[in-house]
């Protein structure tokens, strides 16, 4: 309920103390209450604004739906100004795989396995590589204006939080990953920069199911493309380094550290900064509270966003020619796909008998322009059995 007292809260920038201290923060994690924003979210020129350059706020998502969270991230990036405040958005998701903006889902993820497991594959707006999310994984997005964009600074906040509250020694490497020990990666980073705003987000493996992650991220190796490749790395969970850690505790720890740190460097004794900054806000990413969110969500979950944004790639697979056409022949066929549509079908093996080659080229020509699916190779093979007019039809089965 919003009363004038809460309004007063807002204008005076008092952090909601009741929310700090973690364990009751997100409840079950799937608590989609009807109140969209609990507490204060905005900073309206305080009396002290001349002294403090700008304030910081922490948003915590109450949803574990990857589409809602990504949509909210995008919404915030497009619809908010970060002139007066920096924002850190903390979110978690139920199991899913998230690939970078210019990646190839076939390369990055085991789509068949994921489909059977009911795990969605989602393309996000920022660049970078593919990650597996589940409830043991924490995501943090740091929103700033374009000129205040600084990845290292954000990651330092996390490292300091890990150090101070959990005694975990972590450092940031040149690729902006957070590493523990020599080379165990616990966090990956990606970013998006626009004209006025920019955001940098990272994951944090707290207690993820590594087995699932491995199975989920096994893509198809027979694809050549210039899409952003994910760089595989040895990973570990933060839980392995410190048994005490949990996602809830980590949220409050990082949140507090973020609110405390000033712009130039991070000094631990910034109680005043903490007092004056905006505090925590729980976010329920629904369209009622954030008009336009549903549209973004719909786009993110659409088939075409996932598949038809894929950069050009060529997938080569062996196709067994049907017995009625030729005996004992397997031909390697390379299908070139651009933005989800078949661009070209070529033969990739040598010494193919010319009849078969012609047949394949004919069918390949008919398939150009159609939507690519992994079943295209089977489709190709089955078309080879069909008589002339049928096999070149647009859609056969």
């Amino acid at each position, binding site marked *: 309920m919003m009363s004038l007292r809460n309004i007063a809260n807002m*204008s*005076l920038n008092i952090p909601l103390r009741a929310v700090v201290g973690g364990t009751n923060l997100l409840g079950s994690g799937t608590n989609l209450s009807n109140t969209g924003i609990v507490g204060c979210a905005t900073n309206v020129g305080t009396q002290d604004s001349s002294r403090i350059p700008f304030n910081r706020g922490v948003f915590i998502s109450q949803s574990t739906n990857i589409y809602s969270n990504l949509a909210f991230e995008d919404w915030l990036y497009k619809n908010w100004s970060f002139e007066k405040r920096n924002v850190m958005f903390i979110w978690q998701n139920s199991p899913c795989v998230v690939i970078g903006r*210019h990646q190839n889902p076939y390369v990055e993820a085991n789509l068949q396995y994921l489909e059977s497991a009911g795990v969605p594959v989602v393309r996000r707006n920022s660049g970078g590589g593919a990650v597996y999310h589940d409830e043991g994984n924490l995501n943090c997005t740091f929103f700033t204006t374009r000129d205040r964009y600084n990845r290292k600074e954000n990651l330092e906040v996390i490292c300091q939080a890990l150090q101070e509250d959990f005694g975990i020694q972590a450092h940031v490497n040149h690729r902006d990953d957070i590493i523990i020990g020599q080379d165990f990666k616990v966090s990956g980073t990606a970013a998006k920069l626009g004209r006025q705003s920019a955001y940098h987000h990272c994951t944090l493996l707290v207690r993820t199911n590594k087995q699932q992650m491995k199975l989920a991220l096994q893509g198809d190796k027979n694809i050549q493309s210039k899409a952003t490749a994910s760089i595989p790395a040895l990973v570990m969970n933060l839980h392995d380094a410190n048994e005490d850690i949990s996602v809830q505790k980590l949220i409050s720890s990082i949140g507090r550290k973020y609110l405390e740190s000033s712009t130039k460097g991070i000094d631990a004794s910034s109680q005043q900064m903490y007092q004056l900054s905006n505090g925590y806000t729980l976010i329920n990413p629904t369209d009622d509270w954030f008009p336009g969110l549903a549209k973004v969500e719909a786009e993110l979950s659409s088939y075409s966003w996932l598949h038809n944004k894929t950069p050009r790639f060529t997938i080569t697979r062996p196709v067994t020619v049907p017995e009625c056409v030729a005996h004992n022949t397997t031909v390697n066929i390379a299908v070139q796909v651009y933005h989800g549509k078949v661009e070209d079908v070529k033969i990739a093996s040598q010494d193919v008998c010319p009849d078969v080659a012609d047949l394949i080229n004919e069918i390949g020509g008919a398939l150009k322009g159609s939507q690519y699916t992994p079943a295209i190779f089977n489709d190709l093979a089955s078309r080879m059995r069909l008589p002339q007019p049928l096999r070149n039809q647009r859609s056969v089965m």
Partner: protein
Amino acid sequence: MLGKSTHAPTPTHVPVHLIFNATQRSCLIEATWKSVPLIYNSASPVMSYWARQHSSCKRQTQVVPGWHPCSICIPRSKWVLSRKHRADRPFHTTAVGHRLVSFLLADIGEGIKEVVIKEWFVSEGDTVAQFDSICEVQSDKASVTITSRYDGVIRKLFYDVDDTAFVGKPLVDIEVSKEDDSVGAEVQEGEAISVGRPVEGAVIEPGNFTLPTGKILTTPAVRRIAMEYKIDLYDVQGTGKDGRILKEDLLQYIERKKSGVKAPVSSTPTSPTVATRQTAAPTPALQAPPTLPPSIPVFLGEDKDETITGFQKAMVRSMTHAMKIPHFGYCDEIDMTILVNMRKELKAMAQAHGVRFSYMPVFIKAASIALSHFPVLNSSVDEKCENIKYKASHNIGVAMDTSEGLIVPNVKGVQRLTLLEVAAELNRLQELGSRGALKTQDITGGTFTLSNIGSIGGTYAKAVILPPEVAIGAIGKIQALPRFDAAGNVTKAHIMQVSWSADHRIIDGATMARFSNLWKSFLENPATMIMHLK
């Protein structure tokens, strides 16, 4: 627009004259809305025809490809002008035209020298406006959206998707209108990738045909005023962005002209952007101290749009919520004569205790005493109004008007505080409130509210209840009014009005009336409060 196109060419007038000529000759001008007013010339039917034609067009019109005024004399490929050349070359009748500008890939930051083009949002021949997205590039993990710096038409894309692009090298070629002053803006986002070399401090000399582009940046409103006053905009020094002439500049010029001070010649020569950037700071020529302008014509203000955000937005929400409560009002007037007469003594006593006296503590304490007789007014209902919670503590809120707006801190547990303690607490809250340092606990937990709007003014008011409370009182100002006393004579009485609002779902008029009467009796006769002292 200046109506002087028939004069012998002087530096200030030639541009108009020549544009006139150019307009006659060219079939199509790529006219942005900025340049259109310049060719308003009622003397020329041809010009006004073109003005009319283009005044309704949008920011860019498509240039007919191939037909390019400058291609007559200079092949288009050589038409990438640098400022230096323009300064040397005499003004040209076909100068209204287009320039091909290479838009270089700006520095992304973090020492990144090359990026990969991931997606194009435009293709060759598309019209773009400033800040439209051109392409998306990726550097390692950052996906950056590159936006256009200029308005114009894309003429060439230098890279394909998946190519590696280099920072500082051309990304696209954009054909911009020469009138567009933002072209050649040398500095963007902290780095200096320049299109051409600027001419350092070039000053216009009379008789020199190196002339400004003929483009003055102002709004139509300013041009209108200048027309009324028959002022040549070239004479006016612009102090706005890019040398824009603002209303204030024009006013100052008018007033200076009236007072006989010679206005400085606008030193915006051929290199308008750079030089105007240099002269954009107020020039030394503005020596006359600003005197009050004697009579300024009244300008029509422009409507201003603002989205409601932050504090106001929260207010919107809270008030909408509050108005779901069915309010009823009950008003009364209170004879404060006795209290007013007691004021001096009370003030002295309070001062002895280091407390600033006002009537508010008295109102609060009286309200608390009255509330103990009517506990329903100190209660709270839930959302669906199914349960009432009678609150034990009287936390009486006092509405305060601060620089932030309306804030309602409350004094906790008034039922157990003496008047002095209430006053001290109120002082503390007021002081914190004026500094903007009120704590959460000061603002939350209120059960009843009093709003002393009378301190600013007013008599009767209709206050809005603050959920989750159920009642609120608005206190008007104390006025000296004539009233009849007990003997029937007219005396001077100090009268104060009070307006109560309460939640009609649980409180009826009678309860409110009785409460109000009780409160009124305490104030009209403070001695009765002694009976209820705890």
